[in-house]
């Protein structure tokens, strides 16, 4: 027996299903399709030079040594990589991460490391266990869009920390923390998405002092650390305030974003709550992927792979900065990162990069209008994010040249 239409009221089941819409939770019913998604969709049309995305270059992926790595993993761990595992993470991966994190001054035991399904899940679980509606969350201005997306369903109120070319201004953070009742501070200290800015060592010290003084909680989201093309690594904020900082990293910018592997070290209380939340969300992160990443680090693949990625991206960043210098109008300024994936350009007041987007697409170049990265509306209309990791040098040059022409026309 089969009944595809089940009601006696004459309506077809599909019509009635629309009614589920009014059963949605208030947090969901308010979720609109993201404008940025539409922008990225347009940007991925064939023939468009896309400086809009945030994707690693596919040619950076470890396809060549992957069969070898997979064989090693299957031989070493056997069926365990296909079985359920602990919520906190695959034990050998946590063990190896502890050593990996120590290199950046994050000295934790394996038990203190938790694995998440990408950094995004770290942000979501922290939002889930920390934010009650109306709670204050202090963010950089601009800040990472995915973090806003993760936090928004929990209905925080954002406080924007003032920033300049060196990232957040410690005095501004100090003032915000002094005012009290900030649930947590969210920062990307290295090669920030979207701005490309890096917070210098002395500011990190000041920030660490502030969070200790006010016993605040700070999330140090550090996905781009490994992608440094020039200069020296800076100390993590965690290393200066371990009891107040959640330090988070990812395998997405080295091994592969598709594996969805993030990791964090958090104060014990926060860590336990994150694990509790994660149990209900997905039980644990893919054991197989964790085993791959464990061997990737342990067997020296990362060490050999990372220089290849750096060598791929360094000339792309160079090409972008050189082209901006050569072609962009004098009324523009832009960040000059030593790593990461993004450059941030700021035009003259009155420029509206959102409005110009359609014209750029007509000329087959895409970027992300900067206003979407600000927690308050109406800010950053004259800014844009430019990605260089997923485009070759020639295309970068062509794309920047075209944009320069468009920007000059619009701001003249």
């Amino acid at each position, binding site marked *: 027996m089969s009944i595809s239409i089940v009601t006696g009221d004459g309506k077809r089941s599909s019509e*009635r299903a629309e009614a589920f819409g009014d059963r949605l*939770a208030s947090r969901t019913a308010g979720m609109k399709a993201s404008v940025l998604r539409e922008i990225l969709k347009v940007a991925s049309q064939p023939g468009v030079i896309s400086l809009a995305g945030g994707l690693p270059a596919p040619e950076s992926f470890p396809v060549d040594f992957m069969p070898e790595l997979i064989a090693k993993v299957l031989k070493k761990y056997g069926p365990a990589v*296909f*079985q*359920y595992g602990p919520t906190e993470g695959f034990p050998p991966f946590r063990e190896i991460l502890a050593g990996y994190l120590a290199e950046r001054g994050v000295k934790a035991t394996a038990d203190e490391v938790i694995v998440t399904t990408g950094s995004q899940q770290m942000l979501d679980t922290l939002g889930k266990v*920390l934010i009650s509606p109306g709670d204050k969350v202090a963010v950089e201005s601009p800040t990472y869009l995915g973090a806003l997306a993760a936090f928004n369903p929990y209905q925080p109120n954002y406080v924007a920390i003032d920033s300049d070319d060196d990232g957040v201004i410690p005095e501004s953070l100090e003032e915000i923390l002094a005012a009290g009742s900030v649930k947590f501070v969210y920062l990307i200290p290295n090669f920030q998405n979207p701005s490309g800015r890096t917070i210098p060592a002395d500011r990190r010290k000041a920030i660490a002092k502030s969070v200790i003084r006010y016993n605040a*909680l700070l999330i140090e989201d550090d996905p781009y650390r490994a992608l440094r093309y020039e200069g020296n690594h800076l100390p993590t904020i965690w290393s200066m305030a371990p009891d107040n900082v959640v330090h988070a990293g990812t395998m997405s910018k080295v091994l592969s974003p598709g594996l969805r592997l993030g990791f964090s070290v958090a104060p014990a209380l926060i860590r336990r709550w994150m694990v509790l939340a994660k149990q209900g969300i997905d039980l644990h992160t893919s054991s197989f992927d964790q085993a791959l990443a464990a061997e990737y680090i342990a067997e020296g693949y990362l060490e050999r792979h990372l220089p290849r990625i750096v060598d791929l991206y360094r000339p792309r960043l160079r090409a972008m900065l050189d082209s901006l210098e050569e072609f962009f109008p004098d009324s523009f300024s832009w960040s000059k990162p030593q790593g990461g994936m993004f450059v941030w350009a700021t035009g003259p007041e009155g420029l509206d990069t959102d409005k110009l987007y359609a014209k750029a697409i007509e000329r087959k170049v895409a970027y992300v209008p900067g206003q979407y990265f600000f927690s308050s509306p109406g800010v950053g209309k004259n800014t844009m994010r430019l990605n260089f990791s997923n485009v070759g040098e020639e295309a970068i040059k062509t794309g920047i040249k075209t944009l320069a022409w468009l920007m000059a026309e619009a701001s003249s």
Partner: protein
Amino acid sequence: MLVGQNEKVQTEQWKIATHVVELESSIIREILKISSQPGVISFAGGLPAPELFPMEELREAMEIVVTKHGAPAFQYTLSRGIPQLRELLAERATAYDTATSVDNILITAGAQQAIELVARAFIDRGDYIITEYPTYVGALQAFNYYQAKYATVEMDAEGMIPERAEEKILKYEPKLIYTVSNFQNPTGITMSENRRVKLIELAARHNIPIIDDNSYGDIRFAGQPVPSLKSLGGDRVIALRSFSKIIAPGLRLGWMNGPESIMGYFERVKQCTDLHTNTLCQYLIYEFISAGKLEAHIARIIKDYRAKRDLMVQTMRDNFPEGIRWTEPEGGLFLWVELPEHMSAKELLPKAVAMKVAYVYGEPFFPDGQGQNTLRLNFSNATHDNIVEGITRLAELLKENM
């Protein structure tokens, strides 16, 4: 002694969100920790038998993924999942359930995440959910965060009793009906076809979505197949499915099949949660199924679990004292035991662990904390020898404590 049970994390330093403070650590996870001590024969987990994992087939599929697909298998992908796998699942759902398109399908990190996405998308504080009594504890864990309330419905051998369900619907105006319709976790009970039809009629009359957590439906080793709720109810039903029991749980792959009009919301919620499910394992499963390996593998699982269930049930019949009842499921991974009313399975567990055998006591599966005299036994994970030995130990314990 059980550690961590009913534990509340101290919140002295940073204030945890007010709605989270009430959450408790998963009792089952704590029991699993204890039962994984060396020498303990554990019927506590819900783990598939690792010796059945299709290692060679997965290795071959992995090789194809790397050589044939290359870089895209390692890149970010769509929040709904890779199109190839979604198309394949839509085709299979069309063949086995009801007409399904790629737009009905969203890939999740296991069925657990599918439940959690449903909770996120639908549940406001204080909303009621209809559940079976008892029900899957992982679903309660996912729903609890959103401060759901439960309108529980008793079951008999045919599953949830529709008349009871209707009473609860009229009284509580629930947001959702959540059921594990096939070989339910924890009881092993399967909803009869007649009951399915009645439940769908009820859901239609009151315009309530049915969430069918169908993680075990493919593992039937006895009796006649029953049409899925999805095949009977179409867009009335959001089906939650999983590869955990039919391929491998460690890949964390499941999927939802729901009405097209609602899938955009799930997509957005999924994006905020973890962007998308891991790409490599999606390609892996796609190639595994495309190579025609799934059906033969399910057949192997069925054969293995049937023998284990038969052995467990026979050992129980031969050794358990009078006055104990249990279900004899036609599929899945679990059976359910009811001790005499005065007995507490929770109090017996430390004694059982001392005798090197473990189970999960029933209380966590009851939203109101009842069911003191019940326990769940898993028969998929232990070897034949351990099933006989473990059940014999359990029988001894029960005899001593009757």
